[in-house]
């Protein structure tokens, strides 16, 4: 025990001298290690901070990208399966020297629709609501509702169109604007003037839109060659809505078009429309009705020019269409009174030509000349002496003309203001001097206008 105690006392004493050095060494080492580690920790901390900053930045960027992607996704989600919707708003001021209620086109059977100027003074024009979407991989659907300013909704267009046919074929069914002529397929708000040319009003009641089917084929050629035809129920003038199973309106059309160099584009075509109206009535003092055949030919041509082919700054457009119509059948005089039938035949024509020039960005000027030729009209009751020509006042031979000039300003492609002057000699008695100031706004989905 004592030995152990002695040992315990002596060993530390003996060791003391050695351990002092050792302790100092250890201290030194620890100190050194501390310094080293501190330096390394420092370096690591710096790296960590840098990495964190980098990470933050990356995270920030990622989250920004994510939020952008999310917002894009949300936008897409909201509209994913909904139709593209757009709205066209229009209004105008009209100053007319003649009462618009007396409007008629002399020498021609009235087309039974409001083809003259609308109202004097300030008025809202029809608003159009467009819906379009793909139904599935095979069909797209379009609905165009026209909201009349004094109430009422009219289905202007409502049709399906095939997406999946090939070899240049497209089929359409429903209510649509016929592809005859050049302007017929274009919507009123896309016209270069506030109103349709006279031949469109006299021969098509403004525009031919029918319920029916359309087949169209485009040839696999460098030149555009488009051929097609339509069959319809004949809802409106020049047909008459008939209670029958078959079609009472048929069209054929062909268009050819291409480019000359980079600056010039053109399109030309011929179209044919045949209808068999039955009791197509019109007012001319008394009510008369036509039953028979109506055949209309249209030749159209358009040429567009732009420097370098870029229409943004300057561009020029020249277009013209020629119409020729023959009608033959029976005209019944005063259907509600004596109801006197007689042979009727007419061979009439008309044309218009117009030029529109954009001379600087946003600004365009245009001029149009319309002329109708009464041709020849034979009325059985007049030839037989049963009635006189004075009993058919509107059919008295007259050649209506319309001269129009306009200037328009488009602050953007979604808005347009137009000032239009016209001397309208549709009526045989007096010219109508017209001034229009018009606005057109297009809201919603980006419009894609046909050429």
């Amino acid at each position, binding site marked *: 025990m004592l030995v152990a105690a002695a040992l315990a006392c002596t060993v530390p004493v003996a060791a003391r001298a050695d351990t002092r050095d050792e302790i100092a060494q250890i201290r030194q080492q620890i100190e050194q290690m501390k310094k080293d580690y501190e330096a390394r920790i420092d370096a690591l901390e710096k790296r960590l901070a840098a990495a964190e900053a980098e990470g933050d930045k990356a995270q920030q960027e990622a989250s920004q990208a994510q939020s952008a992607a999310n917002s894009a996704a949300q936008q897409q989600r909201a509209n994913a399966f909904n139709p593209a919707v757009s709205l066209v708003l229009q209004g105008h001021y009209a100053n007319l020297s003649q009462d618009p209620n007396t409007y008629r086109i002399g020498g021609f059977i009235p087309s039974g629709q409001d083809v003259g100027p609308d109202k004097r003074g300030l008025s809202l024009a029809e608003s159009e609501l467009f819906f379009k979407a793909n139904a599935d991989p095979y069909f*797209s659907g379009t609905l165009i509702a026209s909201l009349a300013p004094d109430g009422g909704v009219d289905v202007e267009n409502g049709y399906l169109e095939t997406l999946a046919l090939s070899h240049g074929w497209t089929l359409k069914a429903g209510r649509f604007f016929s592809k005859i002529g050049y302007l017929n397929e274009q919507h009123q708000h896309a016209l270069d003037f506030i109103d349709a040319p006279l031949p469109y009003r006299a021969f098509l009641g403004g525009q031919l839109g029918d319920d029916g089917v359309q087949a169209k084929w485009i040839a696999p050629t460098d030149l555009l060659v488009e*051929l097609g035809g339509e069959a319809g129920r004949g809802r409106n003038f020049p047909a008459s809505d008939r209670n029958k199973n078959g079609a009472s309106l048929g069209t054929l059309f062909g268009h050819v*078009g291409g480019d000359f160099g980079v600056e010039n*584009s053109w399109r030309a075509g011929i179209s044919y429309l045949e209808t068999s109206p039955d009791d197509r009535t019109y007012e001319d003092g008394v009510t008369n009705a036509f039953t028979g055949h109506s055949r209309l030919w249209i030749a159209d041509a358009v040429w567009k020019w732009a420097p370098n082919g*870029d229409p943004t700054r300057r561009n020029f457009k020249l277009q013209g269409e020629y119409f020729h119509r023959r009608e033959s059948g029976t005209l019944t005089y005063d259907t509600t009174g004596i109801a006197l039938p007689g042979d009727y035949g007419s061979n009439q024509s008309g044309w218009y030509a117009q030029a529109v020039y954009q001379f600087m960005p946003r600004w365009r000027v245009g001029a149009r000349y319309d002329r109708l030729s009464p041709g020849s009209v034979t009325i059985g009751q007049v030839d037989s002496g049963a009635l006189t020509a004075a009993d058919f006042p509107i059919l008295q031979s007259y050649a209506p003309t319309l001269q129009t000039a306009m200037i328009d300003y488009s602050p953007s*492609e979604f808005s347009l203001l137009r000032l239009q002057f016209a001397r309208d000699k549709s009526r045989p008695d007096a010219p109508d001097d017209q001034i229009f100031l018009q606005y057109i706004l297009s809201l919603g989905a980006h419009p894609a206008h046909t050429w």
Partner: protein
Amino acid sequence: MKLRILFFVLSLAVAAPAGAALNVLACEPEWGALTRELAGDRAKVYEASTALQDVHHIQARPSLIAAARRADLVVCTGAELEIGWLPLLTSESGNARIQPNAPGYFEAARYVNLIEIPKRLDRREGDVHPMGNPHIQTDPRNVAKVAKALAERLQKIDPANAAWYQQRYQAFDQRWQQAIARWQSEGAPLKGLKIVVHHEAFDYLFRWLGVDQVGTLEPLPGVEPTISHMSQLLEAQKTNPAKLVVRASFNDPRASQWFAARAGIPAVMLPFSVGGDKVSTDLFSWYDDMLSILLKAAGK
């Protein structure tokens, strides 16, 4: 009889159908040039627009409908750049191969990251592009990504020539990557250069080169420059002066000339795509040209 006459007259206009090569309708010249790089003579490329035309406002003219009818593939930017005319071409064409869900419909913008995605959509802010800035062709790294995707698409729709497209893509990509490295070093002096642009047409290019775009002559995207807006920019010149005013080949030169004369800085035209000037005949010479124009004008 009348029917027969009609069809006879129209049939006179029908020319011989196209040959066996792949028919490609490229909406813009850069994608036409890229298709030619990747397909060589195996594709017949028809370009719908030129670098001198504002591609936002191309019209769906008859020749384009005819080209869409024949096309096996349409190669376009997408991102709604062609929204005013491409949907009409596809719907009028009667060609199922190029409908938006078909392999023959290629949108380049799907394969790159778009910048400047607007937070708010309101046409009061001009002709904004809801999906972001669509002028992606002005960053060569975007062109590389599109080339890869386009080569894959070509192989998919024309498997008989898949090896050919693959080989040409690899050769193109190698040359292109080398060119990018060269342009990057050549363009290094442009970093930090302050410029004013007419339209936001080269945002990708300037982002890549580190060029600092301090203003646009257009008060809002797609809205023509106004004197009042340009006067404000002139005022800003005093504190943050731009060294150059840049317009794209399709922009009216007058606005940038007006600004340049008053600011006392050079105005330059950058080709917006292949064919934007005489020197830019393919993708490589186009980028060479853009860089040399900028370097020269900046005095570097």
